[in-house]
């Protein structure tokens, strides 16, 4: 019984490991194609990337800003309810701001990008794969890595970083508004700057680096599952669901590992 359980566990771990290696390989192949010296399709590829950034990034600005602001208001209001005194409130605000910026912002942004664009990319690549469109472009000498993966990867990474900054901005503005409303701080610009200075450049840099890493992870997972649909269209719903769940799992694990490293 125990022996069987160990065999099953071992197989499971090995399968997961293989899949992670596949994601890493896909990301590496795409990364190399981004910096390849080949001029083939440069205009077409970067035009597609710009469109991807508009769809993934610009179109989601209001959603991300709204969620950042609401998250900030809810968290700070709850914190002010439990803490007492101006000093304690100020300390709580600093702590929560850093927590929201360093840990929550990149994770929430990656999840929003995965839900909005990741699912769309998995479906789009899945259909292309099932309808023989990937082979169709290859048949005229077009590199599918350059035409299909480079725009989607670069679009998702740039958008995740950009949306992360929007999230941080919204968190910060809403936090200040909440603090003023709660009477914790006076509504003066000097106070705004003192709050800004509480946020170290290292915190922001860490947040952006995490956003980039989560962006690459999200892109690799959703593209991999899209291209894995093969000739069977009925695979699509299963692939989309798996891709989204895996994005959440991988980003959570990465966030935990990075948090432990930075202890």
């Amino acid at each position, binding site marked *: 019984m125990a022996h069987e359980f160990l065999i099953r566990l071992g197989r499971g771990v090995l399968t997961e490991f293989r899949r992670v290696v596949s994601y890493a390989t896909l990301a590496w192949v795409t990364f190399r194609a981004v910096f390849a010296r080949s001029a083939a399709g440069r205009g*077409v590829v970067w035009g597609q990337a710009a469109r991807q950034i508009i769809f993934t990034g610009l179109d989601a600005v209001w959603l991300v800003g709204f969620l950042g602001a609401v998250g900030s208001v809810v968290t700070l209001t709850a914190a002010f309810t439990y803490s007492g005194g101006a000093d304690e409130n100020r300390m709580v605000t600093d702590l929560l701001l850093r927590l929201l910026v360093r840990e929550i912002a990149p994770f929430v942004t990656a999840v929003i990008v995965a839900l909005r664009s990741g699912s769309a990319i998995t479906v789009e690549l899945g259909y292309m794969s099932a309808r023989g469109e990937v082979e*169709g472009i290859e048949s005229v*000498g077009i590199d599918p890595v350059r035409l299909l993966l480079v725009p989607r990867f670069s679009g998702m990474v740039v958008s995740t970083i950009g949306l992360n900054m929007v999230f941080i901005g919204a968190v910060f503005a809403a936090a200040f508004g909440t603090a003023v409303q709660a009477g914790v701080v006076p509504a003066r610009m000097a106070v705004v700057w003192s709050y800004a200075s509480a946020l170290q450049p290292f915190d922001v840099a860490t947040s952006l680096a995490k956003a980039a890493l989560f962006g690459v992870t999200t892109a690799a997972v959703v593209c991999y599952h899209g291209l894995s649909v093969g000739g069977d269209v009925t695979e699509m719903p299963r692939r989309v669901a798996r891709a989204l769940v895996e994005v959440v799992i991988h980003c959570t694990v990465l966030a935990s590992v990075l948090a432990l490293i930075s202890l």
Partner: protein
Amino acid sequence: MGGIDIERVSVQRPGACIEDVSLHVAPGERVAVVGSHQPSLSVLIRACAGFERVRQGRITVAGTDVGTADRVSLLRLRQSLGYVSIAGGLLSNMTLRENLELALRYHGVRAADARDQVGARIDAVGLQTDADLRACLAPAELCKCFAYLRALLFEPAVLLSEDPSAYLHPQGREIVAALHAEAAARGVTMLIADDDLDFVRPLVDRVVPLEAAVEVAS
């Protein structure tokens, strides 16, 4: 001009396989492989284009061993050969015209020149009224004709076609036959696979039943 050499090739995929097939297509020659099981015929053409892994044997197309060629070499080879799949494989989120322009623009042709070149090709076959339909909304017959136009855009030395008669009504058949004749006049080597002998016979110099290709090997 490149020829095609298929030496004792076996390929297997779900629902189709070929075993121990050998065939030689000389440069400029036009050959049709026919049989009753289209999926197996298609597997042979797909293997020649490097889209199926050859389990055994060797396929050489225009001097390139497609079984051992790496991804970059295959992409380079495909630029010099035309390949038409059964359904055409056009990008469904683009118009039929854009599908053709994309191929040219990717390979460095300026957008305006690509538009002119593609426009001239489309006008030549009389399909200009349908060219701005999105591929996902276009009838299968139109997609097939445009897939042929795309395959012949770069004036390839070799043309591979899986089931050219599939999806085609009489008008589409005429267009495809005319494109084959035009390619033949340029001396293009052709290997096509079809289960419709009446359609392919006038397009080629030689018709080889798939079973005969196996017998040649044994």
